[in-house]
Every structure is written in C-alpha cells, then in structure tokens.
C-alpha cells in the first residue's frame, strides 16, 4: 500500500457500517479502525434507521445496497427524510448505471464500488 495511512483519531469522527455480509462488516470495521475512526456496525437498513432513532449520529455512513429487511436505497431515503445530514457513501459490487442512479437519487453523497480500501476511504475524509 503506497503512502502513509492517515490517522484521523484526533478528529473524533464516527462512522456507521451498514452491511449484512459478515466478511464486509469485518473488513470495513477494520479499515475504519485503522484510520482511527470510531465505528459501529449494523446488519441492514432497518437497523441503520433504528440506531439513528435511538439518538446516535455519525459523520459517515457506509451503506450497502442490497440487504434483507430494508435495503440501502430505502434506508438512505428514510434517513434523509428524518433530516440526517451525515455523509452517506453507497458501497456495493452492483455497479450497473441504472442501479447506481437510483441509489444516488435516494440521497447518497458518494458511490463507491467494492472492495473498499484504505485509500478509497481516506479520500472521503479530506478535512
């Protein structure tokens, strides 16, 4: 991996990983840890909504598209309707144009194709 890994611990950023896949949960959690970003992990869009209803908020949400119970598109729409202004990055292996458009229109700030890497994530935190 070229270049130094930025340490964002001092910025006290918080992130939420929303993904039903355990491998993705582990890797995204670890990626954020390595950047010094505190993060929580939930398994689907409904849990992402619930965690915000409980009063928690985040600077960045990594939102998978296809999940059971509530998918990323629906969850993003609901979070925006709730007034959540966090940066939401849509993260998926699905990258067909129409699906990407639908996901973006739900309220994403970014779209990021999997797999996520340190450099892809770090580029989202240009403070």
């Amino acid at each position, binding site marked *: *991996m070229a270049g130094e890994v930025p340490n964002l611990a001092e910025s006290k950023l918080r992130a939420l990983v929303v993904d039903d*896949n*355990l*491998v*993705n949960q*582990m*890797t995204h959690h*670890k*990626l954020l840890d*390595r950047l010094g970003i505190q993060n929580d992990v939930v398994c689907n869009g409904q849990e992402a909504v619930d965690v915000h209803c409980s009063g928690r908020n985040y600077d960045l949400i990594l939102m998978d598209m*296809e999940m059971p119970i509530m998918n990323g598109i629906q969850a993003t729409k609901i979070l925006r309707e709730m007034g959540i202004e966090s940066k939401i990055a849509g993260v998926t*292996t*699905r990258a067909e144009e129409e699906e990407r458009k639908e996901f973006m229109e739900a309220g994403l700030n970014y779209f990021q194709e*999997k*797999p996520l*890497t*340190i450099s892809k994530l770090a580029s989202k935190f240009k403070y």
Partner: protein
Amino acid sequence: MGKFMQGYLDEQFMELEELQDDANPNFVEEVAASYFKDSARLINNIDQALRRGPLDFNRLDSYMHQFKGSSTSIGASKVKTECTMFREYCRAGNAEGCLRTFQELKKEHATLRKKLEHYFQVQASDQLCVINQLQNMC
C-alpha cells in the same frame, strides 16, 4: 503472497494483510474463516436451489450476488470470476450454464480453501521459528 497464491487472490488480499496489526494479529485468518463459513452456507443454498425445478433464477442470482460480494472483499479472484459468469447465465435463464459454472466455482473454492489453509500454516510455523530464534538469543 508469492507464486503459490497467484491467480487465486488479488490485491484485495494484500490490503487485508496490511490491516493486520498487533491488536489483531490473526485478522486475515479470521476474515478467511468467516468467508469460508459464509460461502459454505451459500454453496449449500445454491446446491439445493439447483435441485429444484424449475430454476428460480432470481433467487440463484441473489445468492450469487452475496457470494460475489464476500469473494470480492477477500480478494478471491477466480471464485469471483465464476460468480460473475454464473450471474450472467442466470440473467440469460440458462440452466445448463448455471450448473456447469457452479461445478467450476465449487472446484475453485475448494482449491482456494486448501491453498489458504496451507498459507496460514506456513505463516504460523514461520512465526514459531522467529520466536524460537529470539528465545535462543536470550
């Protein structure tokens, strides 16, 4: 990673190795264990779905989407390629193509599993050698 794993794992696996640190010294092995547990479940689901006629291509595609997602995250390039091909056959409603590709996928998956088991064993014994050498120096 070496020639032993070449072609089976792509640069994403190296990204995972970069994440391994003193706080999580077995991170990659833990991710691999989760991957194989999850993929065994998916293989079983797909196997059962392929035995039912007529084939539910939407369900099969959904399972394979999950499989491709995990495979992408661990860097399992050959398995990922077979997942992509399977999904194309699903979209074309090609049952024979799905069955054929699934057999290939299972072979690649089994090969990857053996290679990774060996890889982690070698790593563990390398680490033991280092510890023994350090102890001998004291």
